[in-house]
């Protein structure tokens, strides 16, 4: 009975399907979960967390100077460049690409602030929440991209 009801609608449905489903059985509007992206972002988040913990200890001493942290920035930039290449290589991944680009700007701004110099704890503490929010959001999206796997 259901087939009889559907028969007149089949040409319309078929047309719709041919438009939106060229060669697959389900619609995909956004990239799949990428384990490497997820792990790389998590690793970078750990580096930033270490940075903030260390800065909180070093602040007010010579150890907090930019020169002592230049290798951290270099390494973080390498990680971000690798992440960018990875994100660019994945189909329908514009949102993640934009997130990586925004994260790169945040890191550059952090480096610039450090070059100018951190002189008190408030200046450093203020930076932690926006980085935490950014990493949480990126990881949250990656986990959601697992789709059915997540349950």
């Amino acid at each position, binding site marked *: 009975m*259901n087939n009889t009801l559907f028969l007149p609608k089949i040409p319309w449905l078929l047309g719709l399907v041919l438009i939106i489903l060229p060669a697959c059985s*389900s619609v995909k509007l956004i990239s799949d979960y990428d384990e490497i992206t997820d792990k790389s972002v998590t690793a970078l988040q750990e580096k930033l967390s270490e940075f903030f913990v260390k800065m909180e200890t070093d602040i007010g001493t010579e150890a907090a100077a930019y020169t002592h942290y230049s290798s951290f920035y270099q390494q973080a930039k390498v990680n971000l460049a690798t992440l960018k290449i990875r994100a660019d290589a994945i189909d329908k991944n514009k*949102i*993640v690409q934009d997130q990586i680009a*925004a994260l790169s700007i*945040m890191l550059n*701004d952090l480096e610039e602030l450090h070059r100018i110099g951190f002189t008190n704890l408030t200046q450093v503490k*203020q930076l932690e929440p926006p980085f935490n929010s950014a990493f949480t*959001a990126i990881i949250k999206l990656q986990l959601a991209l697992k789709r059915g796997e997540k349950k």
Partner: protein
Amino acid sequence: MANIDFDALISGMIKAVQGKLTKHWKESKPYAEKEIRSFAENIRLIEHLKNTGKINETQAKLYVDIQKNSMRIVLLTIEGLGILAVEAAINAAIDVVRSSVNTALGWAIL
């Protein structure tokens, strides 16, 4: 110099975001509000650092830029979650007709 009215700042920003995220506001509200409050808190700290002479204009701009990009990343996640919801809805609709269409056509096209 006038003090910033933070309550007005927060409610103004929430209203603006709500206007743009009309369709997805219900799901986005907790994230968006948290980010906006964090943004306002950042401005409050910048005001404090400026008033105590611990920050200059260049530094303030960098702090705001970091906060703006953080907010952008959060909103991009909200956008991604919205796209995933639309994708799930389309696929659920296709699942409903898959068996009927495939049977009727004699081809497993769905």
